[in-house]
């Protein structure tokens, strides 16, 4: 850089502190933050027993596994695998359906503008928080010890966890509706039930459909792994084949799961678009 240009920049820097070079204060705050952050990160890594040496050794083992994965084979079990995949989809579908149906009345009960007494929706919302706070996989583990091994435990786990989330979303959607249509129904002499049926329900129905489809998509992913704890679906075979080191079967199962999840994603996005399109047309009319 030319010396006179450098001098020009220096002059500018001294006239306007903090534009060319950062001020000492913010600079040191930033340095302090990042060094503190790095210390925390490395201390945490050491505490958890992470080390490059273990990483390289494990990478070698992982390489061995990868080599044994190719080519993916099914050893004549493809019918069982496809069946388990169907079971996975059935679990996700029924779990989402049950959760949607249970969440609808709970959503009405949890909405402040429908149920006026606060202990009901406060208590309901805290209960939903607890249900939601426990992961689907943990619910699945609990249901396996209550109703036994099999897809039924998985369906109940998905239904319960999703009820916690969906009921909250529905309650918030109901609270955010346009109040004018409720007033119109009331002015025409409708009862509270009529208000719920004719003013609130049509407004929240698109939200309901979109969220249920979205959850079906997410549940397909989580249903693939519920079998790991014995709650049915393809996850059972996946965990089992890993346990006995049948790596080519593992690769086959993973290659079954990935396109299935992708297809469900596309299908659900298409249906969501359809539901939203109908909604938009209704508004236009």
């Amino acid at each position, binding site marked *: 850089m030319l010396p006179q240009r450098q001098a020009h920049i220096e002059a500018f820097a001294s006239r306007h502190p903090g534009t060319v070079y950062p001020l000492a204060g913010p600079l040191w705050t930033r340095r302090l933050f990042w060094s503190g952050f790095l210390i*925390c*990160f490395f201390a*945490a*890594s050491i*505490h*958890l*027993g*992470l080390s490059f040496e*273990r*990483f390289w050794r*494990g*990478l070698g*083992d*992982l390489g061995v*596994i990868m080599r044994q994965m190719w080519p993916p084979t099914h050893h004549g079990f493809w019918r069982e695998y496809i*069946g388990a995949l*169907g*079971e996975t*989809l*059935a*679990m996700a*579908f*029924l779990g989402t*359906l049950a959760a949607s149906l249970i969440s609808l009345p709970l959503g009405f009960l949890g909405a402040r503008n429908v149920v006026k007494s606060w202990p009901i929706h406060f208590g309901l919302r805290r209960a939903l*928080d*607890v249900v939601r*706070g*426990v*992961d689907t*996989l*943990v619910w699945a*583990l*609990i*249901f396996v*010890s*209550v*109703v036994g091994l*099999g*897809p*039924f435990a998985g*369906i*109940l786990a998905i239904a319960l966890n999703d009820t916690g989330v969906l009921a909250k979303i529905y309650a918030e959607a109901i609270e955010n509706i346009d109040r004018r249509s409720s007033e119109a129904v009331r002015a025409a002499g409708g009862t509270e039930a009529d208000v719920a049926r004719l003013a609130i329900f049509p407004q929240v129905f698109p939200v309901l459909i979109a969220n249920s489809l979205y959850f079906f998509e997410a549940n397909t*992913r*989580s249903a*693939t*792994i519920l079998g*790991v*704890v014995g709650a*049915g679906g393809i*996850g059972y075979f*996946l*965990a089992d084949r*890993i346990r006995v*080191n049948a790596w080519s079967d*593992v690769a086959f199962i*993973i290659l079954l*799961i*990935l396109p299935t*999840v*992708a297809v469900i994603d596309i299908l659900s996005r298409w249906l969501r678009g359809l539901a939203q399109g109908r909604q938009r047309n209704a508004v236009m009319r």
Partner: protein
Amino acid sequence: MTHVSDAIGRVEAARRAQMRRTGWKTLLFGGALAVLIGLSLHQGEVSWTKFITGLPRFGAYIIRILPDLSFATLGADLQGWMWNLPNWLKLLFDTVLIAFVSTVMGAIIAFFLSFPAARNMGFGRVSTQLARRFFEFLRTVPELVFALLFVFAFGLGPMAGVLAITLHTAGVLGKMMSEINETITDRSLEGVIAAGASRDRVIRLGVVPQVAPAFVSYILLRFEINVRSASVIGLVGAGGIGQELMFVINQFIYRDISAILALLIVTVAIVDIVSETIRHRIIASEVSHASATPSAH
């Protein structure tokens, strides 16, 4: 009164006509739904007897795991319920650390690959597609599957869990970050380009300052989700509280189940509140910054 009943009649007629028009669609849709439900009930091995017998048992289970807490002897009861508190707190601490370390590592991978994955950074179509497909693969494979594989390769313990969550986080954050990169405005870039900067300088000085607040906000959101993931990753032996939880559920140690679940829910709530506060502060400072910018011109 006649004109009112006229209006009602017209509305009813229009409604009937519409029902006739869309009736077959509704029928088709309902039929498809019924078939799907029937198939799923069959595949899912659902039966009324199972449901009827299962529901009371679940109720009994919940009642059995609840702790005996009476107001008179609350202190002693709590102590009896949380008898293994130091050990559980250590495991919860490990769980949060697993989430922290894997969020940081996943965010680093996502950060560096999010620029080639964005269409407007000039990296060429091939590297953009490669980076995107890589993120998609990492996102689609469930964390628990990665964890199962890594427990085999890296042994039991937190390392397998950290690596599994890292990969999934990289996939999710990579997609979000590349989408944020594609929304930046070109005006501030032009200044950097006009000054003759190379591409990495343009990204460093032109792109990163614009996207950094959104990145940090998404990373924090992901941290919240990863705390939840880290708590279940232990079910397959990959460290954290999950392993202990699986043990007490499988061994039917009822009181401990509720104790661990209660601690877990509280921990997740605390992490959520802290992270949410930071996120809102970032968003607020961003908004005030953005509104201050026009007046500076």
